[in-house]
C-alpha cells in the first residue's frame, strides 16, 4: 500500500522505527503527484531527481548514525513565495517567472536543518492575493474533493497537495486567511501562528504587518511538528518574537482541562451557510461533551475587519510590490520608449489584474491628503479589533467559530465579483489584524461532499493551546482521517 495519504503521525512513526526509508516515502508521494497533479494542479515546480537526492541523503545520514532532524525524511511542499536558493520562486506571477533566488528563506533553512525532504513549490494566487488560487498566472488548482470547485486561496496549492495525498505536510502563508481558508475548503489542518512566531525572512512580502508563515498537515501532530521546526527567533526579521519554541509535537496529545471556549455572535451572522453553521455548532458540542465550558463573547468591531484589511493590506502591498520594476530582476518589457515607460510596461505586463487592483487601492489610500482618512484610520480600527480579542481572551481560552461562510465555491463563480471574493475571508481576517494564532480543523462535510472547517483562535503565543485543543477534537471525530480517492 502506498505511503501517500498516511497521516503525518503515521509516517513519522514509521520513519522513526526504521520501518520505511525516506526514499520510499518520497517515491510514493512523487508517484502520487505524477498520478494526480495533472488533475489537481497543486504544484508549480517538482524536481523528482532532486527530491530523491534529498531523501537519499537523509537515509544516509541516519544510516551513518549522525543525529537526525525532527522532520527527517518527511516530505514538505512549499508555497511558491518562499525563497529557495537555486530553485525558481515565482509567486505565481509572470513578473517573477524566471526569478531564481540566490538565498534560502529562514523557513527553508529550518526545513533543511531538520532533514525534511522538500517536495516542490505549490501554486497560489499571484503574490498571495486572492481566495481561490485562480489568480495564479500559471495554472488552475482544483479542489481534490471536487475538481469543479476551488481549493481556496491563496495557499490553494499547499492545501490541495495535502488533501490529494501528495504531501503530508506543507508550508503556506496567511495574510487574511490564506492558510486557514484553503485548509477549510480542502479538509486539512492549517495554522496561522502568532505574528512574529515564524520568521518572514525570505517570504516574498504581500502585506508585511499581516503576513505569517504557517504549517498545513493532515493531522494535529503533523501541524505541531512542522510548526515546531519552523518557529523561533531570527534576528534577520525585526518583527520576529524572541521567545523559546515549545515542543509542540510532544505536548499535542495532552488534553486541556477546564477549557473555556468563547462563541462570538458576530461569527454567526447573515451570509453564513447553514451547513457550515450546523457543522461548527456540532463541533462545539464535541468540546462541550469533553467538559469545555462554552461562553458567549463579543467581538463588536468584527464588522469593520474586511474594510480595515482592504486598506492596510493593499497599502503595504503597493509599497512591497513597487520593487518589481524591471530594473534589477524579474520581468522587463521588451518594448518601451524611456525609463518611466519601461517601468509602466514591465509592470503592466508582469502583474495580473487582482494584483494591479490592490496596488491601485493601496497607492490611492497612501496618497497625500488621503493617508489620515484611510490608512491611519484603518490602523486605529485595527487596534480596536485587537482590543476586542484581548477582552475576549480575558474570559475565554479559545474562540471557536467558522473559518469561512461557505464550503468551497465553484471555480469561476466569483472571478468577476471581487467584493464577494473578499468576503470569504470575513472570519479569518480578524486574526491577522490582531496578530493572534488561529487554526482550521476539519469538522464536517457538506451534502455536496465538500469539507467544512472549524476555526479556533487563541491569544498571542498560545499555539500550543490551539494544537492540544485540535488533537482533543481529532480523537473524538474522524473528519481529518477522510481521504480523497481518485477514481479511474
Amino acid at each position, binding site marked *: 500500500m502506498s505511503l501517500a495519504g498516511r497521516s503525518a503521525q503515521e509516517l513519522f512513526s514509521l520513519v522513526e522505527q526504521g520501518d520505511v526509508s525516506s526514499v520510499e516515502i518520497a517515491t510514493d508521494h512523487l508517484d502520487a503527484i505524477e498520478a494526480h497533479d495533472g488533475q489537481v494542479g497543486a504544484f508549480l515546480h517538482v524536481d523528482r531527481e532532486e527530491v530523491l537526492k534529498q531523501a537519499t541523503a537523509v537515509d544516509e545520514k541516519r544510516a551513518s548514525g549522525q543525529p537526525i532532524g525532527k522532520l527527517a525524511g518527511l516530505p514538505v511542499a512549499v508555497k511558491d513565495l518562499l525563497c529557495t536558493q537555486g530553485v525558481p520562486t515565482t509567486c505565481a506571477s509572470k513578473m517573477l517567472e524566471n526569478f531564481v533566488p*540566490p*538565498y534560502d528563506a529562514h523557513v527553508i533553512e529550518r526545513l533543511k536543518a531538520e532533514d525534511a525532504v522538500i517536495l516542490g513549490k505549490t501554486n497560489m494566487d499571484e503574490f498571495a492575493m486572492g481566495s481561490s488560487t485562480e489568480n495564479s498566472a500559471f495554472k488552475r488548482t482544483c479542489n481534490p474533493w471536487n475538481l469543479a470547485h476551488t481549493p481556496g486561496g491563496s495557499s490553494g496549492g499547499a492545501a490541495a497537495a495535502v488533501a490529494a495525498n501528495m504531501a503530508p505536510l506543507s508550508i503556506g502563508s496567511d495574510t487574511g486567511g490564506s492558510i486557514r481558508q484553503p485548509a477549510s475548503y480542502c479538509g486539512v489542518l492549517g495554522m496561522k501562528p502568532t505574528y512574529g512566531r515564524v520568521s518572514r525572512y525570505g517570504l516574498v512580502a504581500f502585506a508585511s504587518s499581516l503576513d505569517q508563515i504557517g504549517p498545513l498537515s493532515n493531522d494535529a501532530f503533523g501541524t505541531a511538528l512542522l510548526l515546531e521546526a519552523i518557529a523561533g527567533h531570527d534576528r534577520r526579521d*525585526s518583527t520576529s518574537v524572541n521567545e523559546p519554541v515549545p515542543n509542540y509535537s510532544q505536548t499535542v496529545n495532552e488534553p486541556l482541562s477546564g477549557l473555556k471556549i468563547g462563541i462570538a455572535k458576530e461569527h454567526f451572522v447573515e451570509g453564513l451557510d447553514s451547513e457550515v453553521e450546523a457543522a461548527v455548532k456540532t463541533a462545539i458540542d464535541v468540546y462541550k461533551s469533553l467538559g469545555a465550558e462554552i461562553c458567549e463573547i463579543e467581538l463588536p468591531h468584527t464588522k469593520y475587519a474586511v474594510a480595515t484589511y482592504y486598506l492596510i493590506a493593499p497599502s503595504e502591498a503597493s509599497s512591497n510590490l513597487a520593487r518589481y520594476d524591471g530594473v534589477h530582476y524579474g520581468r522587463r518589457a521588451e518594448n518601451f520608449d524611456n525609463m518611466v515607460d519601461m517601468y509602466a510596461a514591465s509592470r503592466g505586463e508582469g502583474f495580473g489584474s487582482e494584483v494591479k487592483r490592490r496596488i491601485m487601492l493601496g497607492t490611492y489610500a497612501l496618497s497625500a491628503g488621503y493617508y489620515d482618512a484611510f490608512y491611519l484610520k484603518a490602523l486605529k480600527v485595527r487596534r480596536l479589533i485587537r482590543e476586542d480579542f484581548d477582552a475576549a481572551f480575558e474570559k475565554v481560552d479559545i474562540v471557536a467559530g467558522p473559518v469561512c461562510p461557505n464550503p468551497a465555491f465553484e471555480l469561476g463563480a466569483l472571478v468577476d465579483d471581487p467584493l464577494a471574493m473578499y468576503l470569504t475571508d470575513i472570519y479569518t481576517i480578524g486574526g491577522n489584524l490582531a496578530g493572534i494564532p488561529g487554526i482550521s480543523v476539519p469538522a464536517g462535510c457538506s451534502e455536496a461532499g465538500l469539507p467544512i472547517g472549524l476555526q479556533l483562535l487563541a491569544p498571542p503565543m498560545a499555539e500550543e493551546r490551539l494544537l492540544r485543543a485540535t488533537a482533543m477534537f481529532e480523537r473524538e471525530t474522524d473528519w481529518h482521517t477522510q481521504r480523497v480517492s481518485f477514481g479511474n
Partner: protein
Amino acid sequence: MGYTTVIGLEVHVQLLTNSKLFCGCVNRFNPDEPNSQTCPVCLGLPGALPVMNEHAFKLGVKTALGLSCNIPSFTKWDRKQYYYPDLPKAYQISQYDLPFSEDGVFEIETNSETGETKKIGIIRAHLEEDAGKNIHDEKGRGNDSQVDLNRCGTPLVEIVTQPDLRSAKDAHIFLEELRTMLTYLEVSDCNMQEGSLRCDANINLHVETDDGHVIATPIIEIKNMNSFRAVEIALEYEEKRQYEVWKKTGNTLEGSSKQTRGWDANREITFAQREKEDVSDYRYLPDPDLVPVIVEEEFVQSIRDEMCELPADRRKRLQAMYQLSNYDIGVVINQGPEFANYFETVAKGCGDGKQATNWVTQDILREMNERSVGINEFPIKPPVLAALLTKIVAKEISVTSAREIFNTLLTDAAGGDMPIIEHIDEIIKEKGLAMVSDTGQLDGVIETILANNQKIADDFRGGKQGAIGPLIGQVMKEVKGADPKTVRQMIIEKLSS
C-alpha cells in the same frame, strides 16, 4: 531698496560604520568594483528584510547631540516611495514625522576677526539609507546606463537647518564648522569628493520696498554642489539672479512653486531643473518590516558621556588658556582633533602657548603639507617638539637655532632615525648652538668686527639704525649660539658710548 538673503541647508552625512544601515554589507566607498558590496537586503530582493544597525543609530544620536538636538524617546522608520533605478526597493527607508532628533542649534563664528558668532537653528536630523548610483553612458548614446548598488543602504544623517543663514559666506562657514565638528565626533569622514558629505541649499530674498514693506521671493533649492566653495559661489550667484528676476517679474513666494535648480560648476551658473510640484507624492508609510525605536535616557546619556569635547568648547578653552588670536585658534581647531591634540600637548609641554601656536600653525603645517602627511604620521612627535620649544622658552637656544635643530631632526627622520628628545642636546652640542649671552665671551668678537666695519659704525652713529643688522649677523656667524638680543644690545652700547 535692499534685501536680506535667507538660506537654509539640507546636509547629508554618511556615517562611519563598518556595515550598512540595514544589512551586514561593508560600508565602504568602492566605485572600482561595482555591486561587490551587496546582499539580498540592500539589493531589495524579494523576501529580504531590513534590520537596524544599532551602531549607526548611535552615531546618529552622537551627531544630533553635537547639534544640541532633543532626542525624543520614541522614533520610527518610514518608507519614502519613488521610482528610480538606483533605488532597488522603490522606496527609501527614512524617517518622516517622528525623526530621532529635532530642535537643535549650532553656533558658528561669522567673523574670524572679531570672533562674532551666530546661532543657526537645526530643525531636525534624521537617519536614512543612501541610494545606489546610476552611471550613464558618457558617450551620450543613452542606452548604456548602469547601476552600482555598493552605496545602497549606507547610513546617512540628514541635517536640516532653519533658514537662519544670511549670506553665502555664512553657509560656507556653517559647512566648514559642521565638518570640523563631525570630524571631532568621528561620525563621518566628511569627504565631499567621495560623497560622504553632500549639501543642498534653499534660498530666497526678503526684499524691502521703498514704502517699507518686506516681500519674500520664491524659494529655490540648489542641488549638485560638490564643494563648500561651490555652495558659496552658487548661493552668491543665485542671490543676484533672484534679485534681478524679482526686479523684472515681481514674483513673490505666495503663488509661486518651489523650484529646483542645478549647479553647473564649469559655467558657474545655476540652471532650472524642475518645478517642485512635479515631484512625486512620496506616499510615506511607517515601515512594517522595522519596529519603532524606544530611546532610553540612559542610552542617550551613555553617548553623551563618551563624547569628546566639541570643537567650539575646545576653542574657547584653549583660547582662554593660552591667549591665542581668533585666527590662530581657528587654524588649530579646524585642522581636526588630532592636530588640536598635538598642539595642546606641545603647548602644555613647553608652557608657552604663543610659541607652540607659531610652530604648530607655521612650521608643522608647512612640513605636513610638503610631505602630504597627517599630523599622526608627522615624524616629530609632540613631546620632542615640546622639549625643543622648552629650550627656547628657557633661553637655552635661539629661535634660529631651534629651526636648525628642527630641520636636522626632520632630515634624520627621513634617513630613518626617528627624532627623540635626546637628539636635541646632541645636535646643540655638535653644532655649538647653545645660547651664548656671556658678555665676556662676546666682547672681543664684537670689538674686532666693529673695528673691521668702520663705515657701518659711522652710518649707525649718523642715525641709520638699520645699519647694524649685518654686524649682528657677523657676530652670530662667529659665535653660533649667540643670543641675538644680547649681541644687538652690546653693539648699540659700544657704538653709543
